[in-house]
């Protein structure tokens, strides 16, 4: 039975699921959210209107983390979650830290990209939050090189797309926000492992390409609007 995934890969949450599915060797039938994220049409599929949503076996499951756990439960023969409970917890901690402490701090930076009209106090506050969040991630990761152990799992699938996103949209623009995969030894080792892992690298590259296409589209739209 086909497994359908709604949502564009330009979302780091969708990329989490595609990376996890790729690690499991599962084929997902992908489609953009009909009517777009938050549309009434898509809300008929997923009540929250958010992407991704997974349709399988007559059910719709929302929220990327829940979807990954579902795929691991529904296809246990390619189980990704480590059998060792502590390693599993460390991997899940990295997901949770990504969702609760990394993800919320990207959006507030957007209006401050241009140094000419930047509020440095906002940037400094975000820099501090990112510094803490990456510190938490490094602290709770297990023995490496991946988030927990020598194979990638749910935590890697959550954090890697976010790092890819920040490398495109944040670190090059804000000199006071360092890339933790350069400055933090544990995250440096981790990122190197992700880059050297075939399936992880393919997923991160795919996500980054889709994201840069999406960003180019937005830039074009803004330029057109400015001309009008």
């Amino acid at each position, binding site marked *: 039975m086909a497994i359908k995934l709604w949502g564009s890969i330009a979302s780091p949450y969708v990329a989490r699921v595609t990376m996890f599915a790729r690690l499991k060797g599962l084929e997902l039938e992908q489609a953009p959210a009909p009517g777009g994220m938050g549309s009434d049409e898509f809300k008929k599929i997923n009540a929250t209107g958010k992407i991704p949503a997974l349709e399988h076996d007559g059910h719709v499951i929302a929220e990327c983390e829940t*979807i990954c756990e579902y795929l691991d*439960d529904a296809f246990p023969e390619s189980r990704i979650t480590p059998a060792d409970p*502590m390693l599993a917890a460390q991997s899940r901690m990295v997901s*949770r830290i990504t969702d609760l402490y990394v993800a919320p701090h990207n959006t507030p930076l957007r209006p401050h990209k241009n140094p000419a009209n930047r509020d440095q106090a906002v940037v400094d506050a975000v820099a501090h939050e990112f510094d803490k969040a990456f510190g938490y991630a490094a602290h709770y990761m297990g023995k490496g090189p991946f988030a927990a152990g020598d194979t990638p799992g749910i935590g890697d699938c959550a954090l890697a797309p976010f790092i890819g996103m920040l490398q495109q949209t944040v670190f090059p623009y804000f000199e006071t926000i360092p890339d933790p995969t350069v400055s933090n030894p544990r995250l440096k080792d981790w990122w190197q492992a992700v880059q050297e892992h075939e399936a992880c690298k393919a997923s991160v590259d795919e996500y980054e390409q889709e994201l840069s296409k999406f960003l180019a589209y937005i830039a074009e739209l803004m330029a057109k609007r400015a001309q009008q």
Partner: protein
Amino acid sequence: MKIYGALASPFVARAILFARLKGVDLELVPARPGSADYKAINPIGKIPALETDDGQWIAESEVICEYIEDLSPEPSGLPATPIARAQSRMVSRVVDLYLSPAAAKYARQINPEKRDAAIVAEATIELEKSFAYLAHFMGDEPFAAGDKPTLGDCTLAFYMQMVKILVFANFPEIADPTETNPRLKTWWDAIQSHEVCKPLVDEYAVAFDQMMQYFRNA
């Protein structure tokens, strides 16, 4: 194993109920969230944190519950089928991502004289959406996903009790979904009739109320 925190936190209560349903022994050690002493244990500074028998640490209530589940799989704290497990986890997720941030907005709006109507209106839209999501994503009745309480119930039970004290008691114009939404009414009745869930939810209500009074007097 030891759990650090206080029962007045719905996150701590989630882990305690989950462990209790599974018959896993957890010793509650008082901890002050955000204090320097506590951050030395859990740099995030939030409660709960779990100390394992071999001295390792895990934070975040949902991760702690999954760890306890992996460590002692029987009796399971999650339903049997993959879809029902997803439904139970979805309930947790909806609480953490939608209900919890909406509920937090009421904390500074309790006093009617200092109330900002715009904040309350916005919070209420979000709160009601989260209730609709919960009812939508729940699985088979009467609990969050099936005939036994599982992870999602452990998360939602304390939050529902909290919004009863924090929101519905102070804002009578906001409907209590355990009275108005049939699925959530069925669910709440099941929690209230369950011999393990009910006493802990009651204990939490007392602890939360005491904390509220402490802040009011402080």
